[in-house]
């Protein structure tokens, strides 16, 4: 067993730092703010590393700390579950977070919201740790929502910018759509398993499947486990920016670059992947859900890659790349190669964070300019950034021996190995073609930034310089990660081991033997270190880089020609497949219109005017006027009324008998 105090300290340190800086930031100097937060996160990273080594040694932890909610059979404890899956996430989160903290010291220097920013990112670290360390779905959900909140706050960090505020709101609401699904899934879990606890739930899955419960709705039927998994996956789609809930992720680039690196690339957006992997004991039992995961992942991987091809904003290119890469991870989950997904998650965290931070360094240098068309020839001025970004780009493109190669290749092979029918074939095509596109857009961006012609605005030019140490050091640390984690993962941790139980992940992931792609791979035969030479992805990546070299390094007028030649397609892709417009037309405006209609026509016209004023008040007023009119003031009318009264009652009684 692991030491629970130590485990508690890992999330608690960033939390305390965040609260202290958040509440008393106004009284603290900049230096104190960043020292407190950075120190706590680094400490937490060190502790995570310590825990990691212990886990490698076979230790684990499972326990509850207090009861959050309790009502009869509805029991929600707050507890932790530390196993191989958790600990690798903890490590990734804390390490990347530490780098980002340090980087931020330089990047956000002088910003009026300096200490607020540190408070946020420390708070984020805490939330993310809760998310990964929890031992039940509600602890997960707590972290899940908390990271969403911090993401919202950070996207809207520069609250004076209208676009930032809008992007923040969009991010939150789109995420809430996902959360809706997640919540429904959690409710279904409680309904069928009577618990929220991972262990209890997972232990009961086979029984439920055997029982064959199914749900009916409007004549539509599905098995309970499929319902649960699909609902949970909707949550994952929201958080991890999968089509069609991906629209918030590129917009989230409105936030400061460090958080783009930390939240919208390395950690938070991968929470969905983590969750699916965590729930592998459930997903494994639902072919439908797996197919859906594969399909959505593949569509996202391919579609976002196409959008990435033409973006001109440096951060947006990387953002679409992130979507695309998350798609890879989901495809991996869908084909039951969970270990590959987590592996790619880890490598991606390092190189994508690096890519963002390097981009941030560039942006910093060109005075907050993000448009690729206004950069170029920055290689000389920023050597460290140049090198580190090159490493990241190569890693992303999947060039051996950089980290991305190892994980991506494993995924593609797994997809190829898994028989899933049409969906599987589509996925294989998608991930393969996306490799080419990834390489192309990555290097397009790279060349446009550092090579090509010098298009930097005249007044910015004197400002261009290499970033300070505090920025470059995290870049270098991450570059090491981007270089080595892939090889380390395969060789050191034995992640690709098809016998999951024997590999690094041990029992933390679950795959049915019936569809274990890695097993299939293993059966197909051993590969040597050189086997990449014979695989398609490698060559696709190389050709992508080559095309980018051709178009943006050599023949720099080619892109414009190409764009003109394929105008409709180009415009379509440039406008991001018109997703935003689609949502505006089909969801946002109709909802607003419906709201206004219900208000004006329903509440005001029908209920207030019609029913209340017209019906009841109108009736009362009509009665009032009638009564008033009867009181004419003439004595003979009064007398007549009396006589009528006598007459009517008497006649009534006479007739009644």
């Amino acid at each position, binding site marked *: 067993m692991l030491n629970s105090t130590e485990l508690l300290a890992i999330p608690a340190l960033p939390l305390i730092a965040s609260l202290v800086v958040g509440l008393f930031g106004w009284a603290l100097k900049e230096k104190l703010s960043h020292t407190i937060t950075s120190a706590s996160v680094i400490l937490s990273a060190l502790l995570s590393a310590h825990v990691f080594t212990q886990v490698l040694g076979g230790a684990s932890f499972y326990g509850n700390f207090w009861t959050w909610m309790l009502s009869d059979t509805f029991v929600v404890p707050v507890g932790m579950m530390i196993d191989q899956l958790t600990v690798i996430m903890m490590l990734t989160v804390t390490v990347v977070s530490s780098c980002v903290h340090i980087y931020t010291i330089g990047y956000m220097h002088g910003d009026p919201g300096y200490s607020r920013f540190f408070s946020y990112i420390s708070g984020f670290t805490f939330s993310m740790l809760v998310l990964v360390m929890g031992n039940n779905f509600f602890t997960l959900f707590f972290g899940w929502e908390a990271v969403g909140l911090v993401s919202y706050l950070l996207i809207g960090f520069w609250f004076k910018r209208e676009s930032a505020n809008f992007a923040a709101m969009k991010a939150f609401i789109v995420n809430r759509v996902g959360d809706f699904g997640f919540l429904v899934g959690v409710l279904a879990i409680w309904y069928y398993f009577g618990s929220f606890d991972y262990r209890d739930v997972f232990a009961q899955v086979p029984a439920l499947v055997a029982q064959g419960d199914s749900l009916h709705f409007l004549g539509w039927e599905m098995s309970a486990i499929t319902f649960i998994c699909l609902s949970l996956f909707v949550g994952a789609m929201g958080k991890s920016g999968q089509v069609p809930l991906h629209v918030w992720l590129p917009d989230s680039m409105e936030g400061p670059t460090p958080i783009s690196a930390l939240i919208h690339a390395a950690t938070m957006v991968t929470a969905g992947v983590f969750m699916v992997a965590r729930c592998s004991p459930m997903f494994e039992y639902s072919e439908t859900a797996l197919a859906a995961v594969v399909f959505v992942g593949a569509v996202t991987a391919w579609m976002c890659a196409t959008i990435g091809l033409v973006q001109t904003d440096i951060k947006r290119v990387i953002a679409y790349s992130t979507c695309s890469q998350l798609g890879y991870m989901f495809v991996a989950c869908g084909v039951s190669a969970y270990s590959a997904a987590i592996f790619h998650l880890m490598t991606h965290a390092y190189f994508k964070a690096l890519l963002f931070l390097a981009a941030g360094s560039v942006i910093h240098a060109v005075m907050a300019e993000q448009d690729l068309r206004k950069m170029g020839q920055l290689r000389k001025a920023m050597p460290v950034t140049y090198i580190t970004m090159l490493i990241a780009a190569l890693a992303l493109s999947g060039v051996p021996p950089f980290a991305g190669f190892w994980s991506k290749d494993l995924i593609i092979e797994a997809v190829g190995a898994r028989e899933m029918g049409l969906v599987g074939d589509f996925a294989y095509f998608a991930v393969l073609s996306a490799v080419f596109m990834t390489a192309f857009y990555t290097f397009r961006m790279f060349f446009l930034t550092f090579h090509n012609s010098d298009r930097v605005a005249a007044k910015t030019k004197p400002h261009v310089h290499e970033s300070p140490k505090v920025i470059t050091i995290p870049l270098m640390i991450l570059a090491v990660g981007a270089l080595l984690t892939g090889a380390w993962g395969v060789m050191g941790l034995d992640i690709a081991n098809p016998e999951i139980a024997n590999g690094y992940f041990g029992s933390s992931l679950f795959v049915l033997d019936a569809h274990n792609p890695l097993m299939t791979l293993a059966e197909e035969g051993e590969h040597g270190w050189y086997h990449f030479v014979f695989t398609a992805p490698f060559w696709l990546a190389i050709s992508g880089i080559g095309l980018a070299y051709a178009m943006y390094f050599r023949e720099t007028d080619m892109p414009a020609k190409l764009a003109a030649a394929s105008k409709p397609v180009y415009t379509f892709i440039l406008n991001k497949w018109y997703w935003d417009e689609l949502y505006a037309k089909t969801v946002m405006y109709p909802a607003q219109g419906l709201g206004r209609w219900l208000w004006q026509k329903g509440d005001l016209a029908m209920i207030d005017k019609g029913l209340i004023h017209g019906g009841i008040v109108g009736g009362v007023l009509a009665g009032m006027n009638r*009564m008033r009119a009867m009181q004419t003031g003439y*004595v003979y009318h009064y007398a007549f009324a009396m006589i009528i009264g006598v007459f009517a009652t008497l006649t009534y009684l*006479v007739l009644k008998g």
Partner: protein
Amino acid sequence: MNPVNINMPVIAPLIPEMFVAVMAMVILIGDLFLAKEHKVWSGYLAILTCVVAGFLTFSMSPSHAVTAFYGLFVLDPFASYAKLLIYAGTALAIILSLDYIKDEFGVGEYYSLMLFGMLGMMIIVSSPNFVTMYLGLELMALCTYVLVGFQRDVLRSSEAALKYFILGSLATGILLYGISFLYGVTGSFDFASVGAGIAHSGSSGRLAVLLGMVLVIAGLAFKVSIAPFHMWTPDAYEGAPTPVTAYMSVAPKVAGLVILIRVLVDVMPSLHVEYVTIFTWLAVLTMAVGNLAAIAQRNIKRMLAYSTIGHVGFVMLGIIAGNADGYAGVLVYMTIYLFMNMGAFAVIVLMRRDGIQGELLDDFAGLSKVHPGYALAMGLYLFSLAGIPFLGGFWGKYVVFMAAIETGHLYLAITALLFSVVGAFYYIRVVKYIYFDDTRVEFNFVENRLMQATVAVTAIAVVGLGLYPGPLINICKAALGGII
């Protein structure tokens, strides 16, 4: 027939009546000897008369029915209780008159007429016989006719009196015609004998009995403003001097309701089904007229007139219930109504704007800012009239509704409750003027200690009865011992 032995009649139960009659005459004569500035002493004397009469009635209140004057007069707890209410209503009305009437011609006559009217009511509530009832009603009616028209130089006062008089006479005619038929069927004017006679009249006399019943009920309904015999009420209330309006709004209603109950209980028990049917419809009509027409009013006296009609509609639920709870409910209701209504009139009389007696709703604007005390009291009366709890008015409604539901008149009770919601609107509209609006013209309130005390006492009574109505309800239930 042999020469009858003239025995001295039993007169002891009439001591309060005799006292009041004597005092009324004393005031009538004594007033002539008072200088103009001392005429207010007539008023004090009249109040004293009410108080003493109250003591007399209270000390004499019997535990069972006592008859006097050869059975033409009955004193039972029911009558005693009603008399106490009548004294209170009259005394309060006199208090309101002290300042209002002091410059009019015939102050002494005014107070004396009030006392005579009160005497009429006392006789009404004690009558076991149509003769006594008729004479009592007429005594009361003549006094009120004159009082309504008392401001003889004010057009609306005389007009009100004229209308009231014409319609009142018509009602008297109708009542008498009915009595004559009942007499024809039964050969007696005595309630008990008439009741017995009706019960035995059989089918051959049914039509005559029904005619008599309808006409008698119509005649009495006029006195208590049951629609459609209510038409005089708004005009008379508006035209009459305000204290007279106050006087008319409670005491005669008590007398009318009491005699109505007596007639129903003693004379028409065998016609229960018929009169309940009639009253049900009349009650709905009355509530509708009272509560709906009141909304349209800008003059508070007129509004309160319609409000009275509306309340009579509610009170009728107790009569329709026709059991001890219902009749007790009528007494409870009228007791509480006495306080809240007289209180409201007291505030109206106290209020003067720019030297003009305020009667329009607009005149109340901003009262709360100038005189929070009166505003609070008025607010309490109005909420109480609307029937909101912790104020007495709620219990008034409660008891009659309860009686109605107990006897199965569920739909009637629901109708009544819905009308009470409509009614709440015009009461709270006055609260709106008092509390929400700004003052426009300066107030100069009447300075009169007795009237201020009236406001205080009635306000406290309204709250007190709202918080602890138990004893009142018990007393009213006990007061019914004599008749049911």
